[in-house]
Protein backbone atom coordinates (compact mmCIF):
# COMPACT_ATOMS: atom_id res chain seq x y z
CA UNK A 1 0.00 0.00 0.00
CA UNK A 2 2.86 2.36 -0.79
CA UNK A 3 6.04 3.37 0.97
CA UNK A 4 5.68 4.31 4.64
CA UNK A 5 8.37 6.17 6.52
CA UNK A 6 8.22 7.44 10.09
CA UNK A 7 10.57 10.23 11.12
CA UNK A 8 10.72 10.06 14.88
CA UNK A 9 12.66 10.23 18.08
CA UNK A 10 12.91 7.09 20.17
CA UNK A 11 12.29 8.84 23.47
CA UNK A 12 9.40 11.04 22.31
CA UNK A 13 6.02 9.93 23.66
CA UNK A 14 4.33 11.50 20.63
CA UNK A 15 6.35 9.21 18.34
CA UNK A 16 5.78 6.10 20.46
CA UNK A 17 2.01 6.44 20.12
CA UNK A 18 2.34 6.53 16.31
CA UNK A 19 4.58 3.45 16.26
CA UNK A 20 2.08 1.58 18.44
CA UNK A 21 -0.66 2.45 15.93
CA UNK A 22 1.40 1.31 12.93
CA UNK A 23 2.27 -1.97 14.66
CA UNK A 24 -1.35 -2.58 15.71
CA UNK A 25 -2.40 -2.22 12.10
CA UNK A 26 0.45 -4.41 10.87
CA UNK A 27 1.85 -1.64 8.67
CA UNK A 28 5.41 -2.16 7.38
CA UNK A 29 7.39 1.04 7.74
CA UNK A 30 10.87 2.44 7.63
CA UNK A 31 11.89 4.22 10.81
CA UNK A 32 14.23 7.21 10.62
CA UNK A 33 15.58 8.45 13.95
CA UNK A 34 15.90 12.22 14.23
CA UNK A 35 17.95 13.99 16.87
CA UNK A 36 15.56 16.53 18.37
CA UNK A 37 18.48 18.64 19.56
CA UNK A 38 20.03 18.65 16.07
CA UNK A 39 17.21 18.44 13.53
CA UNK A 40 17.82 16.86 10.15
CA UNK A 41 17.18 18.47 6.74
CA UNK A 42 14.73 15.61 6.10
CA UNK A 43 12.59 16.64 9.08
CA UNK A 44 12.73 20.33 8.18
CA UNK A 45 11.69 19.46 4.62
CA UNK A 46 8.71 17.36 5.70
CA UNK A 47 7.53 19.48 8.64
CA UNK A 48 8.64 23.04 7.90
CA UNK A 49 5.82 24.53 9.97
CA UNK A 50 6.53 22.92 13.34
CA UNK A 51 9.95 21.32 12.70
CA UNK A 52 8.97 18.49 15.06
CA UNK A 53 8.67 14.74 15.16
CA UNK A 54 6.71 12.59 14.53
CA UNK A 55 6.18 12.94 10.79
CA UNK A 56 4.63 10.09 8.84
CA UNK A 57 5.56 10.09 5.16
CA UNK A 58 3.26 7.92 3.06
CA UNK A 59 4.03 7.68 -0.66
CA UNK A 60 6.09 10.82 -0.31
CA UNK A 61 3.27 12.82 1.34
CA UNK A 62 3.97 14.01 4.88
CA UNK A 63 1.53 14.10 7.77
CA UNK A 64 2.42 15.85 11.03
CA UNK A 65 0.81 16.15 14.51
CA UNK A 66 0.59 12.82 16.32
CA UNK A 67 -3.19 12.72 16.88
CA UNK A 68 -3.80 13.72 13.24
CA UNK A 69 -1.41 10.91 12.23
CA UNK A 70 -3.29 8.37 14.40
CA UNK A 71 -6.52 9.28 12.67
CA UNK A 72 -4.84 9.09 9.26
CA UNK A 73 -3.47 5.61 10.05
CA UNK A 74 -6.93 4.45 11.12
CA UNK A 75 -8.57 5.78 7.96
CA UNK A 76 -5.91 4.45 5.59
CA UNK A 77 -5.28 0.90 6.82
CA UNK A 78 -8.06 -1.54 7.67
CA UNK A 79 -8.09 -4.07 10.48
CA UNK A 80 -7.82 -3.43 14.25
CA UNK A 81 -9.92 -0.29 14.11
CA UNK A 82 -8.55 2.37 16.42
CA UNK A 83 -11.49 4.77 16.61
CA UNK A 84 -15.05 3.70 17.52
CA UNK A 85 -17.64 3.29 14.76
CA UNK A 86 -20.24 5.56 16.33
CA UNK A 87 -19.83 9.32 15.66
CA UNK A 88 -20.61 10.32 19.22
CA UNK A 89 -18.15 7.80 20.68
CA UNK A 90 -15.56 9.06 18.18
CA UNK A 91 -16.19 12.65 19.29
CA UNK A 92 -15.66 11.57 22.91
CA UNK A 93 -12.37 9.84 22.04
CA UNK A 94 -11.15 13.00 20.27
CA UNK A 95 -12.29 15.23 23.12
CA UNK A 96 -10.45 13.22 25.76
CA UNK A 97 -7.27 12.81 23.70
CA UNK A 98 -7.13 16.59 23.16
CA UNK A 99 -7.89 17.23 26.83
CA UNK A 100 -5.19 14.84 28.00
CA UNK A 101 -2.53 16.32 25.70
CA UNK A 102 -3.35 19.87 26.76
CA UNK A 103 -3.94 19.35 30.47
CA UNK A 104 -2.17 16.16 31.52
CA UNK A 105 0.89 15.95 29.23
CA UNK A 106 1.60 19.70 29.27
CA UNK A 107 0.40 19.90 32.87
CA UNK A 108 2.88 17.22 33.96
CA UNK A 109 5.79 18.83 32.09
CA UNK A 110 5.02 22.23 33.59
CA UNK A 111 4.81 20.78 37.09
CA UNK A 112 8.18 19.10 36.45
CA UNK A 113 10.11 22.21 35.45
CA UNK A 114 8.49 24.81 37.71
CA UNK A 115 9.60 25.62 41.27
CA UNK A 116 8.15 26.77 44.56
CA UNK A 117 4.59 28.05 44.67
CA UNK A 118 4.19 27.84 40.89
CA UNK A 119 5.14 24.16 41.09
CA UNK A 120 2.55 23.50 43.81
CA UNK A 121 -0.15 25.15 41.69
CA UNK A 122 0.91 23.23 38.57
CA UNK A 123 0.83 19.92 40.49
CA UNK A 124 -2.66 20.66 41.79
CA UNK A 125 -3.90 21.61 38.35
CA UNK A 126 -2.41 18.49 36.74
CA UNK A 127 -3.97 16.28 39.42
CA UNK A 128 -7.39 17.85 38.80
CA UNK A 129 -7.01 16.91 35.16
CA UNK A 130 -5.88 13.36 35.91
CA UNK A 131 -8.95 13.00 38.15
CA UNK A 132 -11.15 13.29 35.05
CA UNK A 133 -9.24 10.39 33.45
CA UNK A 134 -9.65 8.33 36.65
CA UNK A 135 -13.39 8.82 36.46
CA UNK A 136 -13.44 7.98 32.76
CA UNK A 137 -11.64 4.63 33.15
CA UNK A 138 -13.52 3.50 36.29
CA UNK A 139 -15.08 0.10 35.68
CA UNK A 140 -13.46 -0.36 32.27
CA UNK A 141 -10.46 -2.43 31.27
CA UNK A 142 -9.38 -0.12 28.47
CA UNK A 143 -10.54 3.39 27.52
CA UNK A 144 -11.77 1.86 24.27
CA UNK A 145 -13.75 -0.92 25.96
CA UNK A 146 -13.38 -4.41 27.36
CA UNK A 147 -11.51 -6.33 24.72
CA UNK A 148 -9.27 -4.24 22.56
CA UNK A 149 -7.17 -1.14 22.97
CA UNK A 150 -7.90 1.77 20.67
CA UNK A 151 -7.16 5.39 19.85
CA UNK A 152 -7.66 6.78 23.31
CA UNK A 153 -5.53 4.07 24.96
CA UNK A 154 -2.73 4.85 22.50
CA UNK A 155 -3.12 8.59 23.10
CA UNK A 156 -2.87 8.06 26.88
CA UNK A 157 -0.22 5.35 26.66
CA UNK A 158 2.45 7.87 27.72
CA UNK A 159 1.17 7.44 31.27
CA UNK A 160 2.60 3.92 31.78
CA UNK A 161 5.39 4.77 29.31
CA UNK A 162 7.00 7.69 31.08
CA UNK A 163 4.88 9.49 33.68
CA UNK A 164 6.83 8.02 36.58
CA UNK A 165 10.06 9.24 35.01
CA UNK A 166 8.64 12.76 34.59
CA UNK A 167 7.59 12.59 38.25
CA UNK A 168 11.09 11.50 39.28
CA UNK A 169 12.80 14.20 37.22
CA UNK A 170 10.35 16.79 38.55
CA UNK A 171 10.69 15.63 42.15
CA UNK A 172 6.94 15.20 42.56
CA UNK A 173 4.11 12.66 42.69
CA UNK A 174 1.14 13.31 40.41
CA UNK A 175 -0.69 10.00 40.07
CA UNK A 176 -0.62 8.01 43.31
CA UNK A 177 -2.19 4.59 44.03
CA UNK A 178 -4.58 5.96 46.62
CA UNK A 179 -6.28 8.61 44.51
CA UNK A 180 -5.91 6.99 41.07
CA UNK A 181 -6.40 3.20 41.48
CA UNK A 182 -8.36 2.71 38.23
CA UNK A 183 -5.97 4.76 36.11
CA UNK A 184 -2.97 2.85 37.46
CA UNK A 185 -4.77 -0.48 36.90
CA UNK A 186 -5.40 0.52 33.27
CA UNK A 187 -1.74 1.56 32.95
CA UNK A 188 -0.62 -1.90 34.15
CA UNK A 189 -3.00 -3.69 31.76
CA UNK A 190 -1.93 -1.54 28.84
CA UNK A 191 1.79 -1.93 29.51
CA UNK A 192 1.46 -5.74 29.61
CA UNK A 193 0.38 -5.99 25.98
CA UNK A 194 3.41 -7.40 24.08
CA UNK A 195 3.43 -5.01 21.13
CA UNK A 196 3.07 -2.10 23.52
CA UNK A 197 5.74 -3.30 25.93
CA UNK A 198 8.21 -4.03 23.10
CA UNK A 199 8.29 -0.39 22.15
CA UNK A 200 9.17 0.94 25.65
CA UNK A 201 12.58 2.59 25.42
CA UNK A 202 15.17 1.77 28.13
CA UNK A 203 14.37 3.73 31.29
CA UNK A 204 17.73 5.44 31.48
CA UNK A 205 17.32 6.76 27.92
CA UNK A 206 13.96 8.24 28.93
CA UNK A 207 15.41 9.66 32.15
CA UNK A 208 18.27 11.30 30.21
CA UNK A 209 15.85 12.79 27.72
CA UNK A 210 13.53 14.28 30.35
CA UNK A 211 16.41 15.59 32.45
CA UNK A 212 17.66 17.38 29.35
CA UNK A 213 14.24 18.81 28.45
CA UNK A 214 13.49 19.98 32.00
CA UNK A 215 17.03 21.35 32.32
CA UNK A 216 16.63 23.35 29.10
CA UNK A 217 13.28 24.75 30.26
CA UNK A 218 14.68 25.76 33.64
CA UNK A 219 17.70 27.48 32.10
CA UNK A 220 15.41 29.64 29.93
CA UNK A 221 13.65 31.14 32.96
Amino acid at each position, binding site marked *: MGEVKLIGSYTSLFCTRVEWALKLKGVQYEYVEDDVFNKSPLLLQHNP*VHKKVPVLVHDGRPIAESLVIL*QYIDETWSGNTLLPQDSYDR*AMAHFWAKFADEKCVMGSFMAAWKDGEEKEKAIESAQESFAFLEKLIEGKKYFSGEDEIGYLDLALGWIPLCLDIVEEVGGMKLVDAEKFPSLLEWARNFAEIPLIKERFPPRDALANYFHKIVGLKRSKK
Partner: protein
Amino acid sequence: MDEREYNMAEEVKVFSTWASPFALRVIWALKLKGVEFDTVHEDLINKSPLLLQYNPIHKKVPVLVHDGKVICESLVILEYIDETWKQNPLLPEDPHQKANARFWAKFGDDKVMQSIGGGVLLKEGKEQEEGFAASMENLKYLEDEIRGKKFFGGETIGLADIALGWLAHYLDIVEEIVGLKLIDQEKFPSLAAWKQEFANAPIIRENWPDRDKLATKYVAMREANLGKGTPK
Protein backbone atom coordinates in the same frame (compact mmCIF):
# COMPACT_ATOMS: atom_id res chain seq x y z
CA MET B 1 -41.51 10.26 7.46
CA ASP B 2 -39.23 11.44 4.65
CA GLU B 3 -35.61 12.42 5.29
CA ARG B 4 -36.39 16.09 5.79
CA GLU B 5 -39.15 15.37 8.29
CA TYR B 6 -36.87 12.97 10.14
CA ASN B 7 -34.15 15.61 10.35
CA MET B 8 -36.59 18.16 11.71
CA ALA B 9 -37.64 15.72 14.40
CA GLU B 10 -34.10 15.76 15.81
CA GLU B 11 -33.22 18.14 18.61
CA VAL B 12 -30.12 20.19 17.96
CA LYS B 13 -29.01 22.91 20.37
CA VAL B 14 -25.93 25.11 20.31
CA PHE B 15 -24.72 26.93 23.43
CA SER B 16 -23.01 30.07 22.25
CA THR B 17 -22.11 33.66 22.99
CA TRP B 18 -22.50 36.59 20.60
CA ALA B 19 -18.73 37.16 20.43
CA SER B 20 -17.26 33.67 20.38
CA PRO B 21 -15.41 32.81 17.17
CA PHE B 22 -15.45 29.17 18.31
CA ALA B 23 -19.23 28.99 18.64
CA LEU B 24 -19.52 30.78 15.29
CA ARG B 25 -17.76 27.85 13.61
CA VAL B 26 -20.45 25.49 14.83
CA ILE B 27 -23.25 27.81 13.69
CA TRP B 28 -21.67 28.16 10.25
CA ALA B 29 -21.27 24.38 9.88
CA LEU B 30 -24.88 23.65 10.84
CA LYS B 31 -26.24 26.40 8.57
CA LEU B 32 -24.04 25.34 5.65
CA LYS B 33 -25.57 21.89 5.99
CA GLY B 34 -29.10 23.22 6.36
CA VAL B 35 -29.54 21.69 9.82
CA GLU B 36 -32.26 23.23 12.00
CA PHE B 37 -31.10 24.12 15.49
CA ASP B 38 -31.82 26.25 18.54
CA THR B 39 -29.28 28.64 19.99
CA VAL B 40 -28.88 29.03 23.73
CA HIS B 41 -27.25 32.41 24.36
CA GLU B 42 -24.82 32.35 27.24
CA ASP B 43 -23.27 35.14 29.26
CA LEU B 44 -19.78 34.00 30.22
CA ILE B 45 -19.74 36.20 33.32
CA ASN B 46 -22.90 34.50 34.47
CA LYS B 47 -22.85 30.97 33.09
CA SER B 48 -26.05 29.00 33.15
CA PRO B 49 -26.29 25.86 35.33
CA LEU B 50 -27.05 23.93 32.15
CA LEU B 51 -23.78 25.01 30.50
CA LEU B 52 -21.83 24.04 33.62
CA GLN B 53 -23.62 20.71 33.65
CA TYR B 54 -22.90 20.04 29.97
CA ASN B 55 -19.30 21.27 29.99
CA PRO B 56 -17.99 20.79 33.53
CA ILE B 57 -14.42 20.39 32.31
CA HIS B 58 -13.89 23.58 30.35
CA LYS B 59 -17.03 25.54 31.27
CA LYS B 60 -16.98 27.14 27.82
CA VAL B 61 -18.96 27.58 24.64
CA PRO B 62 -19.62 26.14 22.19
CA VAL B 63 -21.48 23.05 23.33
CA LEU B 64 -23.54 21.02 20.87
CA VAL B 65 -26.42 18.94 22.16
CA HIS B 66 -27.81 16.52 19.58
CA ASP B 67 -30.71 14.35 20.74
CA GLY B 68 -29.34 14.47 24.27
CA LYS B 69 -25.73 13.75 23.25
CA VAL B 70 -23.37 16.48 24.48
CA ILE B 71 -20.22 17.41 22.57
CA CYS B 72 -17.68 20.11 23.52
CA GLU B 73 -14.63 21.64 21.79
CA SER B 74 -15.39 23.34 18.48
CA LEU B 75 -13.08 21.27 16.25
CA VAL B 76 -14.43 18.03 17.76
CA ILE B 77 -17.98 19.34 17.21
CA LEU B 78 -17.21 20.20 13.57
CA GLU B 79 -16.09 16.66 12.81
CA TYR B 80 -19.16 15.25 14.58
CA ILE B 81 -21.40 17.53 12.51
CA ASP B 82 -19.67 16.48 9.29
CA GLU B 83 -20.10 12.78 10.09
CA THR B 84 -23.71 13.12 11.22
CA TRP B 85 -25.08 15.31 8.41
CA LYS B 86 -23.51 14.22 5.17
CA GLN B 87 -24.71 16.99 2.85
CA ASN B 88 -22.17 19.73 1.91
CA PRO B 89 -19.20 17.86 3.36
CA LEU B 90 -16.58 19.86 5.24
CA LEU B 91 -13.89 17.22 4.85
CA PRO B 92 -12.76 15.53 1.62
CA GLU B 93 -12.81 11.74 1.13
CA ASP B 94 -9.06 11.32 0.69
CA PRO B 95 -7.37 10.57 4.06
CA HIS B 96 -4.29 12.65 3.25
CA GLN B 97 -6.37 15.70 2.35
CA LYS B 98 -8.40 15.14 5.51
CA ALA B 99 -5.21 15.03 7.58
CA ASN B 100 -4.09 18.24 5.86
CA ALA B 101 -7.32 20.04 6.76
CA ARG B 102 -7.06 18.88 10.37
CA PHE B 103 -3.41 20.00 10.51
CA TRP B 104 -4.24 23.55 9.39
CA ALA B 105 -7.26 23.83 11.67
CA LYS B 106 -5.06 22.86 14.62
CA PHE B 107 -2.29 25.21 13.47
CA GLY B 108 -4.80 28.04 13.40
CA ASP B 109 -5.84 27.45 17.01
CA ASP B 110 -2.47 26.49 18.49
CA LYS B 111 -0.26 29.05 16.73
CA VAL B 112 -2.06 31.72 14.73
CA MET B 113 -4.65 32.62 17.32
CA GLN B 114 -2.04 32.54 20.10
CA SER B 115 0.36 34.85 18.29
CA ILE B 116 -2.29 37.33 17.16
CA GLY B 117 -4.55 37.28 20.20
CA GLY B 118 -2.04 36.70 22.97
CA GLY B 119 1.00 38.19 21.23
CA VAL B 120 -0.35 41.27 19.46
CA LEU B 121 -3.76 42.32 20.81
CA LEU B 122 -2.91 41.84 24.47
CA LYS B 123 0.66 43.14 24.42
CA GLU B 124 2.63 46.31 23.78
CA GLY B 125 6.21 47.43 23.21
CA LYS B 126 8.88 44.78 22.74
CA GLU B 127 6.53 41.91 23.62
CA GLN B 128 4.10 43.07 20.94
CA GLU B 129 6.94 43.33 18.42
CA GLU B 130 7.81 39.70 19.14
CA GLY B 131 4.15 38.71 18.85
CA PHE B 132 3.89 40.55 15.57
CA ALA B 133 6.98 38.80 14.17
CA ALA B 134 5.61 35.39 15.22
CA SER B 135 2.23 36.25 13.66
CA MET B 136 3.85 37.20 10.37
CA GLU B 137 5.72 33.89 10.30
CA ASN B 138 2.50 32.00 10.97
CA LEU B 139 0.58 33.96 8.33
CA LYS B 140 3.31 33.18 5.80
CA TYR B 141 2.64 29.45 6.28
CA LEU B 142 -1.06 30.08 5.64
CA GLU B 143 -0.21 32.16 2.55
CA ASP B 144 1.85 29.25 1.14
CA GLU B 145 -0.99 26.83 1.82
CA ILE B 146 -3.80 28.91 0.27
CA ARG B 147 -1.88 29.98 -2.83
CA GLY B 148 -3.64 28.79 -6.01
CA LYS B 149 -6.79 27.82 -4.12
CA LYS B 150 -10.11 29.57 -3.63
CA PHE B 151 -10.60 28.10 -0.17
CA PHE B 152 -8.38 25.97 2.08
CA GLY B 153 -10.91 23.26 1.28
CA GLY B 154 -10.46 23.76 -2.49
CA GLU B 155 -13.45 24.93 -4.50
CA THR B 156 -15.80 24.87 -1.51
CA ILE B 157 -15.52 25.91 2.13
CA GLY B 158 -14.03 23.18 4.27
CA LEU B 159 -13.01 22.45 7.85
CA ALA B 160 -9.85 24.55 7.71
CA ASP B 161 -11.73 27.57 6.28
CA ILE B 162 -14.25 27.40 9.09
CA ALA B 163 -11.51 27.00 11.70
CA LEU B 164 -9.49 29.91 10.29
CA GLY B 165 -12.55 31.97 9.39
CA TRP B 166 -12.15 34.32 12.34
CA LEU B 167 -9.28 35.91 10.39
CA ALA B 168 -11.80 37.27 7.89
CA HIS B 169 -13.57 39.53 10.42
CA TYR B 170 -12.14 39.49 13.94
CA LEU B 171 -8.66 40.26 12.63
CA ASP B 172 -9.72 43.59 11.06
CA ILE B 173 -10.86 44.73 14.47
CA VAL B 174 -7.59 43.69 16.11
CA GLU B 175 -5.62 45.50 13.39
CA GLU B 176 -7.62 48.69 13.94
CA ILE B 177 -7.15 48.61 17.71
CA VAL B 178 -3.39 48.02 17.66
CA GLY B 179 -2.73 50.10 14.54
CA LEU B 180 -0.85 47.28 12.80
CA LYS B 181 -1.59 45.57 9.48
CA LEU B 182 -1.23 41.80 9.66
CA ILE B 183 -2.84 40.43 6.53
CA ASP B 184 -1.19 42.95 4.23
CA GLN B 185 -2.36 42.71 0.59
CA GLU B 186 1.21 43.08 -0.63
CA LYS B 187 2.84 40.60 1.74
CA PHE B 188 0.02 38.03 1.68
CA PRO B 189 -1.96 38.49 -1.56
CA SER B 190 -3.46 34.97 -1.60
CA LEU B 191 -4.50 35.12 2.05
CA ALA B 192 -6.01 38.60 1.52
CA ALA B 193 -7.99 37.25 -1.44
CA TRP B 194 -9.20 34.28 0.64
CA LYS B 195 -10.29 36.69 3.39
CA GLN B 196 -12.50 38.58 0.93
CA GLU B 197 -13.89 35.41 -0.60
CA PHE B 198 -14.69 33.86 2.78
CA ALA B 199 -16.06 36.99 4.47
CA ASN B 200 -18.57 37.46 1.66
CA ALA B 201 -19.58 33.84 1.16
CA PRO B 202 -23.27 32.99 1.64
CA ILE B 203 -24.14 31.96 5.20
CA ILE B 204 -20.74 33.18 6.44
CA ARG B 205 -21.50 36.82 5.71
CA GLU B 206 -24.91 36.68 7.42
CA ASN B 207 -23.55 35.61 10.78
CA TRP B 208 -20.66 37.91 11.69
CA PRO B 209 -20.96 39.50 15.14
CA ASP B 210 -21.31 43.30 15.38
CA ARG B 211 -17.98 45.07 14.66
CA ASP B 212 -18.46 47.93 17.10
CA LYS B 213 -19.48 45.65 19.95
CA LEU B 214 -16.43 43.46 19.25
CA ALA B 215 -14.15 46.50 19.14
CA THR B 216 -15.40 47.66 22.54
CA LYS B 217 -14.90 44.19 23.97
CA TYR B 218 -11.39 43.78 22.56
CA VAL B 219 -10.26 47.23 23.69
CA ALA B 220 -11.41 46.33 27.20
CA MET B 221 -9.57 43.00 27.04
CA ARG B 222 -6.39 44.73 25.86
CA GLU B 223 -6.54 47.37 28.56
CA ALA B 224 -7.29 44.83 31.27
CA ASN B 225 -4.29 42.77 30.19
CA LEU B 226 -2.00 45.78 30.10
CA GLY B 227 -3.20 46.79 33.56
CA LYS B 228 -4.84 49.91 32.29
CA GLY B 229 -8.48 48.95 32.80
CA THR B 230 -10.40 50.48 35.69
CA PRO B 231 -11.49 47.85 38.18
CA LYS B 232 -15.22 47.10 38.00
